[in-house]
């Protein structure tokens, strides 16, 4: 890893903003409700001592805790009205209330979400990231000790997560490869990651790509070095996914190529742009090579289709139909896989409901606006890449009769019968305060 001089207040920023999950990873998300402001602040005060900062985020750290607070959580903790009003509107009303703007309709409609998501009761989210099951237990116990004795702080839900065999996601792919590089974070970008993006896009209190500070929650100590998280829980419909592969490809080899065309990478992580014909697991495993490409030699999408997942989520140098600055629509993402591992032989509708999927933390100083943009423009539409009404084949919401186009010589192939492979089962927006902001919240009641 090539180092650079950090320009950010790393000791203030929470570790999860910059630190990659361990490999393999084990962890738990805990959702809390606060029924009494004073008790809630006491929990925050105690927990803050155990929340990891991003100091030396690049070093191999094997267990840490992160914390986020929702808008209703800030209210429940007694944050003053003028501060509450300084938060962006989409954050204040919450993810469920923004369903229309997020395209969370039909199968993804909040009416079908699991409780407690979207009820306004989720006040605090705690996440433990560890590199072993034993450390997960220990780290979780530390968190629990901080709120357990407080009767007005209640656990609403707990969801363990962990790496599948081989670090694969529930659809059987290596994921989390391409992350936006943050300027001033102290580490040089990996080959292919592109130039560092201004820190203000991801962390409050620094200039963004337009050269200006983004609007920040007030007072300054509350907003600075904080960020926002879009938390989304998806159920992976593995049966539907496999049925689609079987219906449209007749051999294992063809199925694997079709699966790669949907994502833009083979299951190993090897990008189609560099390995267009057959998988190259050594390439997929090498962080210095598996992201080192652009689309200059694939302007027709014959290697990586325009509509594939990774080309949508980071079009790089693809010519887009609308004036777009790719660098201002990026999110840092921490994907956390839960439930049963991918099963290539799962073909039934019952397999679609076997609990397994991913819970994503999408991190950005303007996470709400960026998620709405991505959901509307890059995920549930295709016009920006000239793909008409097609949606993202992996995380998009598919309508009846949806298609996926694979550019090919001499003529393109249009695959039919694509379904919603990842169904949204819940989501919340959280503010991820700096360490000082957590202390400020804890001290609001006068210490």
């Amino acid at each position: 890893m090539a180092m650079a001089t950090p320009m950010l207040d790393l000791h203030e920023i929470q570790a999860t903003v910059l630190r990659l999950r361990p490999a393999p990873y084990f962890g738990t998300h805990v959702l809390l409700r606060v029924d009494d402001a004073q008790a809630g602040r006491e929990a925050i005060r105690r927990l803050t001592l155990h929340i990891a900062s991003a100091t030396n985020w690049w070093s191999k750290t094997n267990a840490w805790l992160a914390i986020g607070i929702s808008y209703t959580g800030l209210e429940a903790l007694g944050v003053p009205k003028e501060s509450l009003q300084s938060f962006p509107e989409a954050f204040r009303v919450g993810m469920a209330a923004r369903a229309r703007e997020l395209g969370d309709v039909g199968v993804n409609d909040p009416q079908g979400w699991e409780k407690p998501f979207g009820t306004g009761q989720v006040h605090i989210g705690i996440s433990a990231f560890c590199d072993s099951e034993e450390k997960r237990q220990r780290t979780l116990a530390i968190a629990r000790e901080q709120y357990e004795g407080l009767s007005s702080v209640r656990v609403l839900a707990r969801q363990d997560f962990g790496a599948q065999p081989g670090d694969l996601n529930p659809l059987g792919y290596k994921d989390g490869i391409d992350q936006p590089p943050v300027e001033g974070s102290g580490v040089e970008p990996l080959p292919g990651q592109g130039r560092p993006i201004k820190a203000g896009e991801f962390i409050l209190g620094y200039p963004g790509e337009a050269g200006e500070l983004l609007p920040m929650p007030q007072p300054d100590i509350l907003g600075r070095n904080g960020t926002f998280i879009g938390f989304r829980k998806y159920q992976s419909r593995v049966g539907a996914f496999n049925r689609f592969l079987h219906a449209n490809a007749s051999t294992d080899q063809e199925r694997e190529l079709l699966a790669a065309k949907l994502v833009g990478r083979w299951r190993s992580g090897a990008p189609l742009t560099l390995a267009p014909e057959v998988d190259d697991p050594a390439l997929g495993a090498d962080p210095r090579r598996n992201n080192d490409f652009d689309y200059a030699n694939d302007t027709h999408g014959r290697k990586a289709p325009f509509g594939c997942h990774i080309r949508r989520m980071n079009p790089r140098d693809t010519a887009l139909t609308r004036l777009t600055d790719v660098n201002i629509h990026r999110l840092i993402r921490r994907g956390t896989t839960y439930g049963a591992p991918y099963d290539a032989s799962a073909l039934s509708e019952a397999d679609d409901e076997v609990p397994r999927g991913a819970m994503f933390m999408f991190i950005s100083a303007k996470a709400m606006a960026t998620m709405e943009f991505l959901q509307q423009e890059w995920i549930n539409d295709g016009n920006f890449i000239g793909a008409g009404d097609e949606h993202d084949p992996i995380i998009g919401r598919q309508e009846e009769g949806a298609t996926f186009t694979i550019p090919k010589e001499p003529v393109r192939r249009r695959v039919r019968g694509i379904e919603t492979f990842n169904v949204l089962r819940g989501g919340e927006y959280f503010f991820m305060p700096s360490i000082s902001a957590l202390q400020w919240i804890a001290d609001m009641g006068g210490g």
Partner: protein
Amino acid sequence: MATQTATADRPKQRLTAEQKIQKLRELYADAPEIGKAALENGIRMLTEELSAPPRAETAGRIGLRQGKVSELTVFLPFVKGGAKRLRGLLQLLEGNFRAADAVGTVHDMRFVFVDDDTKLLFATAYDGDFDPYIEDFATKIPHAMDLWLSNCEGYPGMRSVQAAKDWIAKHQIAAEAWYVNSPNLTAPETRRLESVGKAVEELLDKLG
């Protein structure tokens, strides 16, 4: 300036064509003779229009949309000397708008100077929502935007994205009605079909 009452007081329950005609007769009861006659003589086409399902939707915060195409109309007061500068700029550009080409989603733009050169009426048809892409203007074409909008009062500069968004919304007037001939064709799609059409003609030429 911005008014957004047009959609609010529309009846919730859909009226039948007959009820609508009845309403129109009431509205036109005190119209000039030529208007009253037009209502009765043109009743066939009117009935067709009044029976059809509605095509208009709203676009983003303010404005109307039909299919994929939205309208944006703003009334912007000029700063001192602004009208003169903008007129000079527009005349020298002679209809070349590279920034609009680059934006890719703009179907048309019109710049009309009104009220004795004290205000600019700017009207455009564009694809989708306007808001999501304003930030892209701020990092990609801030100078092209600032060059003409700086002639208008209160313009905060494109790099102050949030303020610029609010400023535009403040001066926007929702159209009372909006019609698009090909509501499902975006500007890029139109260009694509143009080139597909050309390629087909060439192919047919070769075959013939």
